[in-house]
Protein backbone atom coordinates (compact mmCIF):
# COMPACT_ATOMS: atom_id res chain seq x y z
CA UNK A 1 0.00 0.00 0.00
CA UNK A 2 2.77 2.40 1.00
CA UNK A 3 4.54 1.42 -2.16
CA UNK A 4 1.53 2.10 -4.34
CA UNK A 5 1.14 5.52 -2.75
CA UNK A 6 4.80 6.20 -3.45
CA UNK A 7 4.21 5.57 -7.13
CA UNK A 8 1.16 7.81 -7.10
CA UNK A 9 3.03 10.66 -5.45
CA UNK A 10 5.89 10.49 -7.93
CA UNK A 11 3.49 10.16 -10.84
CA UNK A 12 1.68 13.26 -9.63
CA UNK A 13 4.83 15.32 -9.24
CA UNK A 14 6.30 14.30 -12.56
CA UNK A 15 3.00 14.68 -14.34
CA UNK A 16 2.84 18.27 -13.17
CA UNK A 17 6.43 18.75 -14.27
CA UNK A 18 5.75 17.27 -17.70
CA UNK A 19 2.63 19.32 -18.16
CA UNK A 20 4.56 22.46 -17.34
CA UNK A 21 7.18 21.63 -19.97
CA UNK A 22 4.56 20.62 -22.49
CA UNK A 23 3.17 24.15 -22.40
CA UNK A 24 6.45 25.14 -23.97
CA UNK A 25 7.35 22.19 -26.13
CA UNK A 26 3.96 20.89 -27.14
CA UNK A 27 1.87 24.02 -27.29
CA UNK A 28 4.34 26.75 -28.17
CA UNK A 29 7.06 24.91 -30.03
CA UNK A 30 9.78 26.05 -27.63
CA UNK A 31 12.28 23.50 -26.38
CA UNK A 32 13.66 24.22 -22.93
CA UNK A 33 16.52 22.27 -21.40
CA UNK A 34 16.09 24.02 -18.07
CA UNK A 35 12.95 22.51 -16.60
CA UNK A 36 14.93 20.65 -13.94
CA UNK A 37 16.54 23.94 -12.91
CA UNK A 38 13.16 25.54 -12.18
CA UNK A 39 12.03 22.32 -10.51
CA UNK A 40 15.09 22.75 -8.32
CA UNK A 41 14.41 26.41 -7.60
CA UNK A 42 11.01 25.45 -6.24
CA UNK A 43 12.45 22.57 -4.25
CA UNK A 44 15.22 24.64 -2.73
CA UNK A 45 12.88 27.54 -2.01
CA UNK A 46 10.63 25.24 -0.05
CA UNK A 47 13.58 23.58 1.65
CA UNK A 48 15.29 26.78 2.69
CA UNK A 49 12.21 28.73 3.67
CA UNK A 50 10.65 25.98 5.76
CA UNK A 51 13.80 24.79 7.47
CA UNK A 52 15.80 27.96 7.87
CA UNK A 53 13.19 30.67 7.98
CA UNK A 54 10.59 28.51 9.63
CA UNK A 55 7.77 29.70 7.40
CA UNK A 56 4.75 27.57 6.46
CA UNK A 57 4.97 25.43 3.30
CA UNK A 58 2.38 27.46 1.40
CA UNK A 59 4.40 30.63 1.76
CA UNK A 60 7.52 28.82 0.63
CA UNK A 61 5.72 27.43 -2.41
CA UNK A 62 4.49 30.84 -3.46
CA UNK A 63 7.92 32.39 -3.03
CA UNK A 64 9.44 29.56 -5.03
CA UNK A 65 7.00 30.10 -7.87
CA UNK A 66 7.60 33.84 -7.88
CA UNK A 67 11.38 33.48 -7.85
CA UNK A 68 11.19 30.92 -10.61
CA UNK A 69 9.06 33.10 -12.83
CA UNK A 70 11.28 36.11 -12.25
CA UNK A 71 14.48 34.26 -12.99
CA UNK A 72 12.94 32.88 -16.15
CA UNK A 73 12.98 36.41 -17.52
CA UNK A 74 16.78 36.40 -17.40
CA UNK A 75 16.72 33.55 -19.85
CA UNK A 76 13.77 34.46 -22.02
CA UNK A 77 14.11 38.19 -22.54
CA UNK A 78 17.52 38.16 -24.22
CA UNK A 79 17.04 34.97 -26.20
CA UNK A 80 13.45 34.84 -27.40
CA UNK A 81 13.86 37.86 -29.65
CA UNK A 82 16.18 35.75 -31.74
CA UNK A 83 15.92 32.37 -33.42
CA UNK A 84 14.52 29.57 -31.31
CA UNK A 85 17.88 27.78 -31.48
CA UNK A 86 19.31 30.52 -29.30
CA UNK A 87 16.57 29.97 -26.76
CA UNK A 88 17.52 26.30 -26.54
CA UNK A 89 21.13 27.28 -26.01
CA UNK A 90 20.19 29.84 -23.36
CA UNK A 91 18.14 27.28 -21.44
CA UNK A 92 21.00 24.78 -21.69
CA UNK A 93 23.42 27.33 -20.32
CA UNK A 94 21.00 28.30 -17.58
CA UNK A 95 20.49 24.71 -16.53
CA UNK A 96 24.22 24.21 -16.20
CA UNK A 97 24.75 27.27 -14.10
CA UNK A 98 21.72 26.58 -11.96
CA UNK A 99 23.26 23.24 -11.01
CA UNK A 100 26.55 24.96 -10.38
CA UNK A 101 24.86 27.43 -8.07
CA UNK A 102 22.93 24.71 -6.23
CA UNK A 103 26.15 22.79 -5.81
CA UNK A 104 28.53 25.59 -4.90
CA UNK A 105 26.57 28.23 -3.02
CA UNK A 106 27.04 26.33 0.16
CA UNK A 107 25.98 29.25 2.30
CA UNK A 108 22.49 29.11 0.87
CA UNK A 109 21.98 25.54 -0.28
CA UNK A 110 24.54 23.61 1.76
CA UNK A 111 25.96 22.48 -1.55
CA UNK A 112 26.33 18.78 -2.13
CA UNK A 113 25.38 18.02 1.44
CA UNK A 114 21.84 19.00 0.69
CA UNK A 115 19.11 20.20 2.99
CA UNK A 116 17.31 17.67 5.13
CA UNK A 117 14.53 17.76 7.66
CA UNK A 118 12.01 19.37 5.36
CA UNK A 119 8.57 18.95 6.93
CA UNK A 120 6.32 16.48 5.22
CA UNK A 121 2.77 17.49 4.37
CA UNK A 122 0.26 15.80 6.63
CA UNK A 123 -3.51 15.92 6.38
CA UNK A 124 -5.08 18.82 8.26
CA UNK A 125 -5.58 17.94 11.87
CA UNK A 126 -2.97 15.22 11.48
CA UNK A 127 -5.48 12.49 10.81
CA UNK A 128 -4.56 9.34 8.95
CA UNK A 129 -1.13 8.09 7.97
CA UNK A 130 1.35 10.78 6.95
CA UNK A 131 1.71 9.30 3.52
CA UNK A 132 -1.94 9.93 2.75
CA UNK A 133 -1.52 13.65 3.20
CA UNK A 134 1.28 13.98 0.75
CA UNK A 135 -0.39 11.65 -1.70
CA UNK A 136 -3.49 13.74 -1.80
CA UNK A 137 -1.44 16.88 -2.09
CA UNK A 138 0.42 15.45 -5.03
CA UNK A 139 -2.69 14.34 -6.87
CA UNK A 140 -4.44 17.63 -6.20
CA UNK A 141 -1.45 19.57 -7.39
CA UNK A 142 -1.23 17.54 -10.57
CA UNK A 143 -4.92 18.12 -11.24
CA UNK A 144 -4.50 21.81 -10.51
CA UNK A 145 -1.59 22.16 -12.90
CA UNK A 146 -3.43 20.15 -15.52
CA UNK A 147 -6.53 22.29 -15.33
CA UNK A 148 -4.50 25.50 -15.48
CA UNK A 149 -2.67 24.27 -18.53
CA UNK A 150 -5.95 23.33 -20.18
CA UNK A 151 -7.28 26.82 -19.56
CA UNK A 152 -4.29 28.57 -20.95
CA UNK A 153 -4.03 26.40 -24.05
CA UNK A 154 -7.61 26.95 -25.13
CA UNK A 155 -9.38 29.87 -26.76
CA UNK A 156 -7.60 33.03 -27.76
CA UNK A 157 -4.35 32.65 -25.81
CA UNK A 158 -3.91 29.03 -26.80
CA UNK A 159 -4.71 29.83 -30.42
CA UNK A 160 -1.87 32.30 -30.55
CA UNK A 161 0.49 29.80 -28.92
CA UNK A 162 -0.44 27.13 -31.41
CA UNK A 163 0.04 29.63 -34.19
CA UNK A 164 3.48 30.53 -32.91
CA UNK A 165 4.31 26.86 -32.82
CA UNK A 166 3.62 26.48 -36.50
CA UNK A 167 4.50 29.82 -38.09
CA UNK A 168 5.60 32.67 -35.89
CA UNK A 169 6.14 35.10 -38.75
CA UNK A 170 2.55 34.66 -39.90
CA UNK A 171 1.26 35.27 -36.38
CA UNK A 172 3.35 38.43 -36.13
CA UNK A 173 2.03 39.61 -39.47
CA UNK A 174 -1.44 39.50 -37.93
CA UNK A 175 -0.35 42.01 -35.32
CA UNK A 176 0.36 39.70 -32.38
CA UNK A 177 3.24 40.55 -30.10
CA UNK A 178 4.64 37.04 -30.07
CA UNK A 179 7.44 37.96 -27.70
CA UNK A 180 4.87 38.65 -24.98
CA UNK A 181 3.27 35.26 -25.41
CA UNK A 182 6.55 33.39 -25.39
CA UNK A 183 7.92 35.21 -22.36
CA UNK A 184 4.68 34.77 -20.45
CA UNK A 185 4.29 31.08 -21.18
CA UNK A 186 7.90 30.47 -20.21
CA UNK A 187 7.43 32.28 -16.91
CA UNK A 188 4.21 30.37 -16.25
CA UNK A 189 5.86 27.07 -17.09
CA UNK A 190 8.74 27.87 -14.73
CA UNK A 191 6.35 28.73 -11.92
CA UNK A 192 4.49 25.45 -12.35
CA UNK A 193 7.74 23.50 -12.39
CA UNK A 194 8.69 25.23 -9.15
CA UNK A 195 5.37 24.19 -7.64
CA UNK A 196 6.11 20.59 -8.50
CA UNK A 197 9.55 21.08 -7.00
CA UNK A 198 8.11 22.32 -3.74
CA UNK A 199 6.01 19.23 -3.40
CA UNK A 200 8.98 17.07 -4.23
CA UNK A 201 10.92 18.69 -1.40
CA UNK A 202 8.13 18.02 1.07
CA UNK A 203 7.83 14.44 -0.07
CA UNK A 204 11.45 13.35 -0.09
CA UNK A 205 12.13 15.73 2.89
CA UNK A 206 15.65 16.10 1.57
CA UNK A 207 16.99 17.98 -1.45
CA UNK A 208 20.40 17.97 -3.00
CA UNK A 209 21.73 19.20 -6.33
CA UNK A 210 21.91 15.78 -7.95
CA UNK A 211 18.17 15.76 -8.62
CA UNK A 212 18.35 18.89 -10.75
CA UNK A 213 20.89 18.27 -13.49
CA UNK A 214 20.84 18.57 -17.26
CA UNK A 215 20.16 14.86 -17.42
CA UNK A 216 17.03 15.39 -15.35
CA UNK A 217 15.87 18.05 -17.78
CA UNK A 218 16.42 15.61 -20.60
CA UNK A 219 14.33 13.01 -18.82
CA UNK A 220 11.46 15.44 -18.42
CA UNK A 221 11.68 16.16 -22.12
CA UNK A 222 11.51 12.43 -22.76
CA UNK A 223 8.35 12.14 -20.70
CA UNK A 224 6.67 14.85 -22.72
CA UNK A 225 7.69 13.55 -26.12
CA UNK A 226 7.13 9.87 -25.41
CA UNK A 227 3.73 10.58 -23.93
CA UNK A 228 2.70 12.86 -26.76
CA UNK A 229 3.62 16.52 -26.88
CA UNK A 230 0.79 19.00 -27.12
CA UNK A 231 -1.91 16.49 -26.30
CA UNK A 232 -4.27 16.60 -23.35
CA UNK A 233 -3.10 13.45 -21.62
CA UNK A 234 0.26 12.89 -23.27
CA UNK A 235 2.47 14.43 -20.57
CA UNK A 236 0.60 12.55 -17.86
CA UNK A 237 0.91 9.29 -19.78
CA UNK A 238 4.59 9.86 -20.39
CA UNK A 239 5.30 10.77 -16.79
CA UNK A 240 3.36 7.86 -15.35
CA UNK A 241 4.99 5.41 -17.70
CA UNK A 242 8.45 6.63 -16.93
CA UNK A 243 7.78 6.56 -13.20
CA UNK A 244 6.48 3.02 -13.34
CA UNK A 245 9.28 1.57 -15.49
CA UNK A 246 12.02 1.77 -12.85
CA UNK A 247 9.75 0.08 -10.36
CA UNK A 248 9.19 -2.72 -12.80
CA UNK A 249 12.91 -2.93 -13.40
CA UNK A 250 13.42 -3.36 -9.70
CA UNK A 251 11.45 -6.57 -9.76
CA UNK A 252 13.60 -7.80 -12.60
CA UNK A 253 16.44 -7.63 -10.12
CA UNK A 254 19.02 -5.32 -11.62
CA UNK A 255 21.81 -4.34 -9.27
CA UNK A 256 21.15 -0.88 -7.84
CA UNK A 257 24.29 0.65 -9.26
CA UNK A 258 23.40 0.17 -12.88
CA UNK A 259 19.62 0.27 -12.48
CA UNK A 260 19.57 4.03 -12.73
CA UNK A 261 21.69 3.94 -15.87
CA UNK A 262 19.59 1.24 -17.48
CA UNK A 263 16.46 3.21 -16.74
CA UNK A 264 17.87 6.30 -18.35
CA UNK A 265 19.16 4.40 -21.34
CA UNK A 266 15.67 3.11 -21.79
CA UNK A 267 14.23 6.63 -21.69
CA UNK A 268 16.80 7.77 -24.22
CA UNK A 269 16.03 4.90 -26.55
CA UNK A 270 12.31 5.46 -26.21
CA UNK A 271 12.81 9.12 -26.99
CA UNK A 272 14.72 8.36 -30.17
CA UNK A 273 12.24 5.68 -31.19
CA UNK A 274 9.31 8.00 -30.56
CA UNK A 275 10.77 10.77 -32.65
CA UNK A 276 11.73 8.46 -35.48
CA UNK A 277 8.79 6.10 -35.51
CA UNK A 278 5.86 7.57 -33.69
CA UNK A 279 6.29 11.31 -33.45
CA UNK A 280 2.83 11.79 -32.00
CA UNK A 281 3.89 9.85 -28.93
CA UNK A 282 1.87 7.35 -26.97
CA UNK A 283 -1.45 9.13 -26.90
CA UNK A 284 -0.89 12.19 -29.04
CA UNK A 285 -2.54 12.86 -32.35
CA UNK A 286 -0.33 15.46 -33.94
CA UNK A 287 3.20 14.78 -35.10
CA UNK A 288 5.91 17.09 -33.81
CA UNK A 289 6.37 20.45 -35.40
Amino acid at each position, binding site marked *: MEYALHIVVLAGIFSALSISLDLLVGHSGLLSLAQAAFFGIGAYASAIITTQAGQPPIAAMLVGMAVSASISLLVSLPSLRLRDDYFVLATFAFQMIAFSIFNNWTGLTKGSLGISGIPSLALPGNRGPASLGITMASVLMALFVWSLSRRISRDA*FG*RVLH*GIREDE*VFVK*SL*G*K*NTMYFKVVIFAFSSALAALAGSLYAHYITYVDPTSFTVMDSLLIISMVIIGGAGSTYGPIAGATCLVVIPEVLRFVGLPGAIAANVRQILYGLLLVLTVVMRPAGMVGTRPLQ
Partner: protein
Amino acid sequence: MLNCEQLRKSFGGVRALWDFSVRFPDQGIIAIIGPNGAGKTTLVNVISGLIRPDAGSCFLRAREITGYALDKIARLGIARSFQTLRLIRGLSVLDNALLARPGWRGESFAVALCRFGVGTEYQAHERKCLDLLQLVRLFDKRNNLAEALSYGEQKLLSIVCCLATDAQVLVLDEPVAGVHPEMAVRILDVLREIRQSGKLVIFIEHDIAAVRAVADMVVVMDHGEKIAEGTPEDVLSRPRIIEAYVG
Protein backbone atom coordinates in the same frame (compact mmCIF):
# COMPACT_ATOMS: atom_id res chain seq x y z
CA MET B 1 -2.18 57.22 -46.64
CA LEU B 2 1.07 55.42 -47.26
CA ASN B 3 4.25 57.05 -48.51
CA CYS B 4 7.65 55.62 -49.24
CA GLU B 5 10.57 57.95 -49.73
CA GLN B 6 13.94 57.15 -51.22
CA LEU B 7 13.97 53.58 -50.01
CA ARG B 8 17.21 51.68 -50.42
CA LYS B 9 17.93 48.06 -49.65
CA SER B 10 20.80 45.91 -50.84
CA PHE B 11 21.57 42.28 -50.23
CA GLY B 12 25.27 41.67 -50.48
CA GLY B 13 26.10 43.64 -53.57
CA VAL B 14 22.68 43.33 -55.14
CA ARG B 15 20.42 46.38 -55.17
CA ALA B 16 16.87 45.34 -54.38
CA LEU B 17 15.57 48.84 -53.83
CA TRP B 18 17.21 52.00 -55.05
CA ASP B 19 15.89 55.48 -54.25
CA PHE B 20 12.38 54.11 -54.52
CA SER B 21 9.60 56.58 -53.74
CA VAL B 22 5.87 56.26 -54.11
CA ARG B 23 2.75 57.85 -52.67
CA PHE B 24 -0.21 55.56 -52.28
CA PRO B 25 -3.71 57.08 -52.15
CA ASP B 26 -6.15 56.58 -49.30
CA GLN B 27 -8.13 53.95 -51.11
CA GLY B 28 -8.25 51.94 -54.28
CA ILE B 29 -6.37 49.09 -55.84
CA ILE B 30 -2.74 49.66 -56.78
CA ALA B 31 -0.77 47.08 -58.69
CA ILE B 32 3.00 46.73 -58.51
CA ILE B 33 4.49 44.99 -61.49
CA GLY B 34 7.93 44.32 -62.83
CA PRO B 35 10.18 41.51 -64.01
CA ASN B 36 11.58 38.97 -61.59
CA GLY B 37 14.12 40.45 -59.24
CA ALA B 38 12.74 43.95 -59.68
CA GLY B 39 12.43 44.38 -55.94
CA LYS B 40 8.66 44.09 -55.60
CA THR B 41 8.68 41.62 -52.73
CA THR B 42 11.49 43.51 -51.05
CA LEU B 43 9.34 46.62 -51.20
CA VAL B 44 6.47 44.75 -49.58
CA ASN B 45 8.81 43.36 -46.94
CA VAL B 46 10.12 46.82 -46.11
CA ILE B 47 6.66 48.39 -45.96
CA SER B 48 5.29 45.66 -43.74
CA GLY B 49 8.30 45.67 -41.44
CA LEU B 50 9.70 42.25 -42.20
CA ILE B 51 13.03 43.84 -43.11
CA ARG B 52 14.59 47.22 -42.42
CA PRO B 53 15.66 49.41 -45.28
CA ASP B 54 19.27 50.56 -45.51
CA ALA B 55 18.05 54.10 -46.12
CA GLY B 56 14.85 56.00 -46.76
CA SER B 57 11.56 56.15 -44.86
CA CYS B 58 7.98 55.00 -44.87
CA PHE B 59 5.05 56.94 -43.51
CA LEU B 60 1.61 55.71 -42.62
CA ARG B 61 -0.91 58.55 -42.24
CA ALA B 62 2.04 60.95 -41.90
CA ARG B 63 3.51 58.93 -39.04
CA GLU B 64 6.95 57.48 -39.64
CA ILE B 65 6.97 53.70 -39.49
CA THR B 66 10.43 53.00 -40.91
CA GLY B 67 12.11 50.15 -39.10
CA TYR B 68 9.12 49.25 -36.97
CA ALA B 69 8.64 45.56 -36.31
CA LEU B 70 6.33 43.37 -38.35
CA ASP B 71 3.74 43.02 -35.61
CA LYS B 72 3.76 46.69 -34.72
CA ILE B 73 3.10 47.78 -38.28
CA ALA B 74 0.31 45.23 -38.52
CA ARG B 75 -1.28 46.73 -35.44
CA LEU B 76 -0.98 50.17 -37.00
CA GLY B 77 -3.13 49.04 -39.89
CA ILE B 78 -1.10 47.35 -42.63
CA ALA B 79 -1.93 43.69 -43.22
CA ARG B 80 -0.02 41.56 -45.71
CA SER B 81 -0.03 38.20 -47.38
CA PHE B 82 3.04 36.21 -48.35
CA GLN B 83 4.28 34.89 -51.64
CA THR B 84 4.90 31.57 -49.95
CA LEU B 85 1.35 31.48 -48.60
CA ARG B 86 1.67 31.47 -44.83
CA LEU B 87 -1.20 30.10 -42.80
CA ILE B 88 -1.63 27.92 -39.73
CA ARG B 89 -2.36 24.68 -41.53
CA GLY B 90 -3.08 22.82 -38.34
CA LEU B 91 -5.95 25.14 -37.43
CA SER B 92 -9.35 25.28 -39.05
CA VAL B 93 -10.34 27.95 -41.54
CA LEU B 94 -12.43 29.67 -38.90
CA ASP B 95 -9.66 29.48 -36.33
CA ASN B 96 -7.22 31.10 -38.71
CA ALA B 97 -9.63 33.98 -39.18
CA LEU B 98 -10.30 34.22 -35.44
CA LEU B 99 -6.56 34.29 -34.82
CA ALA B 100 -6.31 37.32 -37.07
CA ARG B 101 -8.88 39.30 -35.15
CA PRO B 102 -7.40 42.11 -33.06
CA GLY B 103 -8.46 43.08 -29.59
CA TRP B 104 -8.98 39.71 -27.95
CA ARG B 105 -9.10 40.32 -24.24
CA GLY B 106 -8.55 36.61 -23.88
CA GLU B 107 -5.06 37.04 -25.31
CA SER B 108 -3.95 38.62 -22.09
CA PHE B 109 -2.55 36.04 -19.71
CA ALA B 110 -4.63 37.10 -16.72
CA VAL B 111 -7.88 36.93 -18.63
CA ALA B 112 -6.91 33.63 -20.21
CA LEU B 113 -6.32 32.13 -16.79
CA CYS B 114 -9.55 33.24 -15.17
CA ARG B 115 -11.57 33.07 -18.42
CA PHE B 116 -13.73 36.00 -17.55
CA GLY B 117 -16.19 36.99 -20.26
CA VAL B 118 -14.74 34.52 -22.71
CA GLY B 119 -18.07 33.53 -24.24
CA THR B 120 -19.41 36.92 -25.29
CA GLU B 121 -16.12 38.04 -26.75
CA TYR B 122 -15.94 34.89 -28.82
CA GLN B 123 -19.38 35.40 -30.28
CA ALA B 124 -18.59 38.90 -31.43
CA HIS B 125 -15.39 37.90 -33.16
CA GLU B 126 -16.92 34.77 -34.61
CA ARG B 127 -19.73 36.74 -36.19
CA LYS B 128 -17.28 39.01 -37.94
CA CYS B 129 -15.20 36.10 -39.18
CA LEU B 130 -18.20 34.19 -40.46
CA ASP B 131 -19.30 37.29 -42.37
CA LEU B 132 -15.91 37.48 -44.02
CA LEU B 133 -15.98 33.79 -44.85
CA GLN B 134 -19.40 34.28 -46.40
CA LEU B 135 -18.01 37.09 -48.50
CA VAL B 136 -15.38 34.87 -50.06
CA ARG B 137 -17.64 31.81 -50.12
CA LEU B 138 -15.54 29.76 -47.74
CA PHE B 139 -18.30 29.58 -45.14
CA ASP B 140 -19.04 25.92 -45.83
CA LYS B 141 -15.43 24.99 -45.21
CA ARG B 142 -15.12 26.98 -42.02
CA ASN B 143 -14.42 23.92 -39.88
CA ASN B 144 -12.05 22.25 -42.31
CA LEU B 145 -8.38 22.35 -41.50
CA ALA B 146 -6.58 24.98 -43.51
CA GLU B 147 -4.29 22.33 -44.96
CA ALA B 148 -7.30 20.58 -46.49
CA LEU B 149 -8.13 23.54 -48.69
CA SER B 150 -7.10 23.86 -52.30
CA TYR B 151 -4.28 26.23 -53.14
CA GLY B 152 -6.67 28.89 -54.40
CA GLU B 153 -8.89 28.55 -51.35
CA GLN B 154 -5.86 28.97 -49.13
CA LYS B 155 -5.05 32.18 -50.97
CA LEU B 156 -8.59 33.35 -50.29
CA LEU B 157 -8.16 32.43 -46.65
CA SER B 158 -5.01 34.48 -46.35
CA ILE B 159 -6.93 37.46 -47.75
CA VAL B 160 -9.67 36.78 -45.20
CA CYS B 161 -7.06 36.86 -42.46
CA CYS B 162 -5.82 40.23 -43.71
CA LEU B 163 -9.38 41.54 -43.67
CA ALA B 164 -10.03 40.10 -40.24
CA THR B 165 -7.28 42.25 -38.78
CA ASP B 166 -9.41 45.33 -39.58
CA ALA B 167 -6.38 46.81 -41.34
CA GLN B 168 -6.97 49.78 -43.56
CA VAL B 169 -4.18 48.82 -45.94
CA LEU B 170 -3.79 45.36 -47.44
CA VAL B 171 -0.56 44.43 -49.16
CA LEU B 172 -0.91 41.20 -51.11
CA ASP B 173 2.01 39.36 -52.63
CA GLU B 174 0.82 37.64 -55.80
CA PRO B 175 -2.78 36.96 -54.79
CA VAL B 176 -3.72 35.17 -58.02
CA ALA B 177 -0.46 33.52 -59.01
CA GLY B 178 -0.74 29.82 -59.62
CA VAL B 179 -4.51 29.55 -59.14
CA HIS B 180 -7.23 28.23 -61.39
CA PRO B 181 -8.66 30.91 -63.74
CA GLU B 182 -12.05 30.60 -62.08
CA MET B 183 -10.51 31.07 -58.70
CA ALA B 184 -8.58 34.06 -60.01
CA VAL B 185 -11.88 35.66 -60.99
CA ARG B 186 -13.22 34.99 -57.50
CA ILE B 187 -10.20 36.56 -55.90
CA LEU B 188 -10.36 39.61 -58.10
CA ASP B 189 -14.02 40.02 -57.23
CA VAL B 190 -13.04 39.98 -53.58
CA LEU B 191 -10.48 42.71 -54.24
CA ARG B 192 -13.15 44.83 -55.82
CA GLU B 193 -15.37 44.31 -52.77
CA ILE B 194 -12.54 45.42 -50.56
CA ARG B 195 -12.08 48.55 -52.63
CA GLN B 196 -15.81 49.20 -52.30
CA SER B 197 -15.48 49.18 -48.54
CA GLY B 198 -13.01 52.03 -48.72
CA LYS B 199 -9.72 50.27 -48.10
CA LEU B 200 -6.42 50.47 -49.90
CA VAL B 201 -5.20 47.33 -51.61
CA ILE B 202 -1.67 47.10 -52.93
CA PHE B 203 -0.81 43.95 -54.77
CA ILE B 204 2.13 42.48 -56.61
CA GLU B 205 1.29 40.54 -59.73
CA HIS B 206 2.75 39.09 -62.87
CA ASP B 207 -0.63 38.49 -64.45
CA ILE B 208 -1.19 41.56 -66.63
CA ALA B 209 -4.79 40.65 -67.33
CA ALA B 210 -5.53 40.70 -63.62
CA VAL B 211 -3.85 44.07 -63.35
CA ARG B 212 -5.89 45.51 -66.18
CA ALA B 213 -9.05 44.06 -64.69
CA VAL B 214 -8.95 45.64 -61.24
CA ALA B 215 -6.13 48.13 -60.78
CA ASP B 216 -6.79 51.84 -60.50
CA MET B 217 -3.12 52.58 -60.65
CA VAL B 218 -0.01 50.71 -61.70
CA VAL B 219 3.56 51.12 -60.44
CA VAL B 220 6.27 49.52 -62.54
CA MET B 221 9.56 48.48 -60.98
CA ASP B 222 12.82 47.26 -62.42
CA HIS B 223 16.20 46.79 -60.74
CA GLY B 224 14.87 48.31 -57.56
CA GLU B 225 13.72 51.54 -59.17
CA LYS B 226 10.36 52.91 -60.13
CA ILE B 227 10.29 53.22 -63.90
CA ALA B 228 6.66 54.12 -64.45
CA GLU B 229 3.50 55.05 -62.64
CA GLY B 230 -0.03 55.74 -63.83
CA THR B 231 -3.31 54.19 -64.88
CA PRO B 232 -3.21 50.72 -66.42
CA GLU B 233 -4.28 51.95 -69.83
CA ASP B 234 -1.58 54.56 -69.82
CA VAL B 235 1.29 52.55 -68.40
CA LEU B 236 0.60 49.24 -70.08
CA SER B 237 0.51 50.76 -73.54
CA ARG B 238 3.96 52.31 -73.33
CA PRO B 239 6.30 50.43 -75.63
CA ARG B 240 9.18 50.36 -73.19
CA ILE B 241 7.07 48.72 -70.52
CA ILE B 242 5.65 46.17 -72.89
CA GLU B 243 9.15 45.36 -74.03
CA ALA B 244 10.58 44.97 -70.56
CA TYR B 245 7.77 42.64 -69.66
CA VAL B 246 6.34 40.76 -72.52
CA GLY B 247 9.09 41.06 -75.06
